[in-house]
């Protein structure tokens, strides 16, 4: 065992450059500042469940009990909004027409402004409704039930478009811009992506040069696929700027965030892109030609734009979970309507096991997704900063669960599901983009796996240090030793049964076992690959999938426990779903982790690499058809 730790320690030296590695996945949030690895040590402990999962520790403070940040008054406040927002969708908005026309008509937009939908989280004195994240999420659910395209018009505006001003704006910036964008009819956009820089957002080429008198920046460059890009008058724009490194005295290019008004001059945009879905949301290229930006319009600090961008995205990700929870609910309504009405072979569809399995899975996914999304918003509202991996998981989970649920709803409806009138085909088209934008799911998986591994690695480094001076660190060494001993001989170091209601003990046990297996896998990967783990995407993806399944188990276990404890009328039903979920998710974790260790599967990854290489050489399939003509 001690040998094992030493081995880890040796390899973990190589992990020093891990932050660099993460930077390569730059569409991703950075949770810690790069320059201060030393200061991190003294910083507060990381309370993220997912981070600590990689160390095999159950950090339960943000998961148990289920975090609800609203008091009764706040619940009533948002409760009063539910009806008017729903009515807007049933009486004013026409999602099918928006889709057909590829735009939202003026009358509907006017209603939306009057409704207050564009400034949900802005402070009241600046023209908004001052909703916290959970309240915002509740309304996003309604939007997701009705019109995802419109959801992006609203979301690109406030979830990313001007979110930077809310998070990083100075008092003057807030007072100047927030009233306009919350109640003044002015649209906002978030402009990060460029033709040569998508996932690798740190590689942007837009450049802002400070004028000689130091009062302005001159911005040049172009952005692509900017939501609201054709209608926004205020944009959060990211560009390279030359920044002096105080420590080395050298000049270096670093990203800075700016608030750019169309009115500054030199801002123009391309025509609306023609798209597969979310058609009514305007997507356009935006061009900047010698745009003169006053220095007061730097958002956050000069040179810290990348962090600003990542935190804006991080901060909004839970919203996707909320929105798509609404979409899944719509799909389930449609599917159950049909299953209870349609008779084939003399029986209603609902009586067939094949249909029952589909419906049950749909409901379980909706529940688990909702549990994750509300857990994150709850933690954010309670002041947590350690939610970035969780938010990434929420985004991946929501977009994939909603795709699955919508697809199965269409299947249950059969031919009817394929018809425009049923609206499911529109939801399906609209849903596709959610796996791509705001960080692709692939990149977010790598982000979760690598950030977690880095966190685990840094811990192992501490253990290594302890061994250099064992006398002074006996406590830590013994703690580690006993933890490892128990898990290696298969006792299972993790016991979550005390965290849940007694009737969910068995499910909690499955979750605990998954965590044990997971942590051992992380450790063995560190030992085997060290820094080189970065290149092992076949393995990282399976690790990420396991982390997602485990976090999903923990959040839904917590929610159902709370429901049971408070005797909620649906508690028994929730228990049923969580039990179902934990059996399936823990099984998947076992399979995924085995596929990391298995020699047979590792052989297969090599095969797949070869297959892919050949294809890319050929730019085509490589094989002939069986008849050879």
């Amino acid at each position, binding site marked *: 065992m001690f040998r094992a730790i030493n081995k880890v320690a040796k390899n973990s030296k190589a992990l020093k450059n891990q932050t660099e590695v993460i930077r390569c996945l730059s569409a991703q949030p950075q949770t810690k500042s790069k320059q201060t690895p030393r200061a991190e040590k003294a910083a507060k402990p990381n309370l993220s469940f997912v981070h600590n999962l990689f160390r095999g520790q159950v950090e339960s403070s943000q998961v148990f009990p289920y975090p609800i940040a609203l008091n009764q008054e706040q619940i*009533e*406040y948002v*409760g*009063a*909004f539910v*009806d*008017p*927002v729903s*009515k*807007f969708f049933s*009486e004013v908005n026409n999602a099918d027409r928006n889709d057909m026309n590829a735009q939202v008509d003026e009358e509907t937009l006017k209603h939306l402004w*009057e*409704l*207050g*939908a564009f400034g*949900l989280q802005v402070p*009241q004195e600046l023209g908004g*409704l*001052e909703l916290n994240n959970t309240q915002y999420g509740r309304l996003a659910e309604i939007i997701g039930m009705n019109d995802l395209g419109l959801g992006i018009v609203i979301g690109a505006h406030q979830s990313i478009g001007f979110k930077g001003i809310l998070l990083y704006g100075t008092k003057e910036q807030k007072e100047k811009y927030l009233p306009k964008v919350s*109640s003044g009819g002015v649209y906002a956009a978030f402009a990060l992506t460029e033709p040569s820089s998508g996932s690798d957002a740190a590689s942007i080429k837009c450049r802002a040069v400070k004028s000689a008198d130091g009062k302005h920046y001159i911005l040049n460059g172009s952005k692509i696929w900017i939501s609201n890009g054709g209608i926004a008058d205020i944009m959060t724009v990211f560009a390279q700027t030359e920044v002096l490194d105080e420590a080395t005295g050298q000049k270096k290019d670093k990203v800075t965030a700016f608030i750019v008004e169309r009115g500054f001059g030199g801002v123009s945009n391309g025509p609306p892109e023609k798209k597969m879905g979310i058609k009514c949301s305007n997507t356009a290229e935006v061009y900047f030609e010698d745009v003169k930006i006053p220095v007061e319009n730097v958002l956050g600090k000069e040179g810290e734009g990348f962090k600003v961008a990542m935190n804006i995205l991080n901060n909004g990700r839970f919203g996707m979970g909320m929105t798509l929870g609404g979409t899944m609910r719509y799909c389930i309504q449609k599917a159950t309507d049909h299953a209870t009405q349609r008779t084939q072979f003399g029986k209603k569809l609902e009586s067939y096991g094949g249909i029952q399995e589909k419906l049950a899975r749909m409901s379980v996914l909706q529940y688990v997704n909702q549990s994750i999304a509300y857990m994150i918003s709850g933690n954010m509202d309670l002041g947590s900063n350690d939610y970035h991996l969780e938010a990434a998981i929420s985004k991946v989970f929501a977009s994939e669960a909603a795709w699955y649920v919508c697809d199965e709803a269409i299947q249950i409806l059969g031919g009817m599901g394929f018809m425009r009138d049923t609206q499911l085909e529109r939801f399906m088209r609209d849903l596709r983009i959610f796996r791509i934008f705001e960080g692709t799911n692939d990149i977010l998986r790598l982000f979760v796996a690598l950030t977690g591994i880095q966190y685990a690695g840094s811990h192992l480094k501490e253990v290594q240090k302890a061994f250099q001076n064992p006398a002074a660190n006996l406590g830590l060494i013994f703690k580690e030793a006993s933890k490892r001993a128990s898990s290696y001989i298969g006792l299972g170091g993790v016991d979550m049964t005390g965290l849940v209601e007694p009737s969910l003990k068995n499910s909690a046990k499955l979750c605990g076992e998954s965590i044990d297996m997971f942590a051992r896998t992380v450790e063995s990967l560190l030992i085997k690959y060290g820094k080189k783990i970065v290149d092992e995407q076949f393995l990282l993806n399976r690790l990420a999938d396991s982390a997602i399944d485990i976090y999903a188990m923990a959040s839904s276990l917590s929610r159902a426990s709370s429901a049971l404890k408070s005797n909620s*009328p649906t508690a028994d039903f929730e228990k049923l779903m969580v039990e179902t979920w934990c059996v399936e998710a823990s099984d998947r974790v076992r399979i995924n982790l085995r596929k990391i260790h298995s020699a047979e599967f590792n052989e297969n990854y090599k095969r797949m690499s070869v297959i892919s290489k050949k294809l890319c050489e050929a730019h085509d399939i490589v094989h002939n058809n069986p008849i050879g003509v």
Partner: protein
Amino acid sequence: MSRVLVGVKRVIDYAVKIRVKPDKSGVVTEGVKHSMNPFDEIAVEEAVKMKEKKLASEVIALSVGPPQSQETLRTALAMGVDRGIHIEISGKDYEMLQPIHISKMFAKIAQDEKCDLIVLGKQAIDDDSNQTAQMTAAVLDWPQAVFASAVEKTDGGLKVVREIDGGLETITTKLPAVVSADLRLNIPRYATLPNIMKAKKKPIKKLSAADVGVDIKPRIEVISVEDPPIRQAGSIVPDIDTLVSKLKEAGHVK
């Protein structure tokens, strides 16, 4: 015209499927979505419009019911009503409350608040009594214009178009008066979120039945509440002759 009093009742939402309690003492209300009685929404809209047209100086909403009635009042305030009055009555007392009690309360508040017009919904969609407006007019000895589908201010009072069997009737009335709103009077606005937010700051006065001096001792007793009979499945008959003989069999035609 100076002051309008409107009634807003908290009822089970029109879209909810009503369930009878197993002991047949009433319907299930717990955990069930409630909202403002739709006819009261129309009454509120009418009063708020009068205020917007400067025909009314103030609009007061009154709700009688359990603590949650405050939410209904908030909705009215968000729609443009100036202030609310809540007469809190809950539990068994509220279950047994009848239009006779409510109308006395409206009459008392109208007098205390010096209102000269009361606009109520023609009926509440839960008990469908259709009595409160008429009784309130009687208690106050004011003229009544019920089932209004149009209300217009004239010099001396109101011109009201009423929905009656087979058509419309136009009447004029002096003020003070009681009007009850029918379905076609207007299309009520929905509260915008900023107005809901602002409504949080508008005042709601809380009173008890004793404060307004109304004896709420029940005069009636509920013996049993039951579901309507379940509709029997229909069947398709091959031709007219079979249809006629089947109808005869069932005693529907002779």
